[in-house]
């Protein structure tokens, strides 16, 4: 049974709602800001979506690197996980558009930073959505 969050006026999920929490987290990961939107923080959800997408689009315009795991380079595993944090945009860019980035581009390093940051920001959003769903945060 849901109990009302007295601060935000939206439901704080209990133990029985764990599947719902994980569903929300999955959506929060796939679509930046969607977790906050589903949890009733609609304005912030839209703002987060725009911010993460702005970072992704800037990274693409600069033809930065969308990390993937390379053999004999273990750090690319961490970088790939970080980039995958952006959710659906990562898979759309990598597998649907075949995006790779351009190593010879002037903006390559900057673009890589923007793309990686977008993934890391969305991972923070997922953790924030977890705290909100569990009633630990406003």
């Amino acid at each position, binding site marked *: 049974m849901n109990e009302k969050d007295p601060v935000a006026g939206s439901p704080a999920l209990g133990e029985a709602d764990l599947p719902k929490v994980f569903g929300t987290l999955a959506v929060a990961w796939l679509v930046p800001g969607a977790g906050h939107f589903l949890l009733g923080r609609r304005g912030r959800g839209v703002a*987060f979506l725009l*911010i993460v997408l*702005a*970072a992704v689009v800037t990274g693409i315009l*600069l033809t930065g690197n969308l990390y993937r795991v390379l053999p004999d380079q273990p750090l690319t595993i961490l970088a790939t996980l970080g980039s995958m944090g952006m959710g659906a945009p990562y898979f759309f860019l990598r597998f649907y558009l075949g995006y790779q980035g351009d190593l010879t581009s*002037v*903006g390559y390093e900057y673009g890589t930073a923007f793309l990686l*940051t977008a993934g890391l920001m969305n991972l923070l959003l997922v953790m924030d959505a977890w705290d909100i769903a569990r009633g630990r945060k406003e």
Partner: protein
Amino acid sequence: MPISHFFLMTLYALIVSLFFAILWRRNRRDQVRLLLQMFLGLVGGALLLAWLMYPFPSGPPAPIP
């Protein structure tokens, strides 16, 4: 599109500052305050670091013609 290092650095600082201001603060006034603190800290810190590094050589000396 001409790429300015300073513009990209400023844009990056703005995006990150905006993100954390909305994530960490609820009140609009507090959000604006944190946004300004982070943005100015990032850009100012980068400029300060660049200024401190200015005397250091950036690479091998240019060949004498």
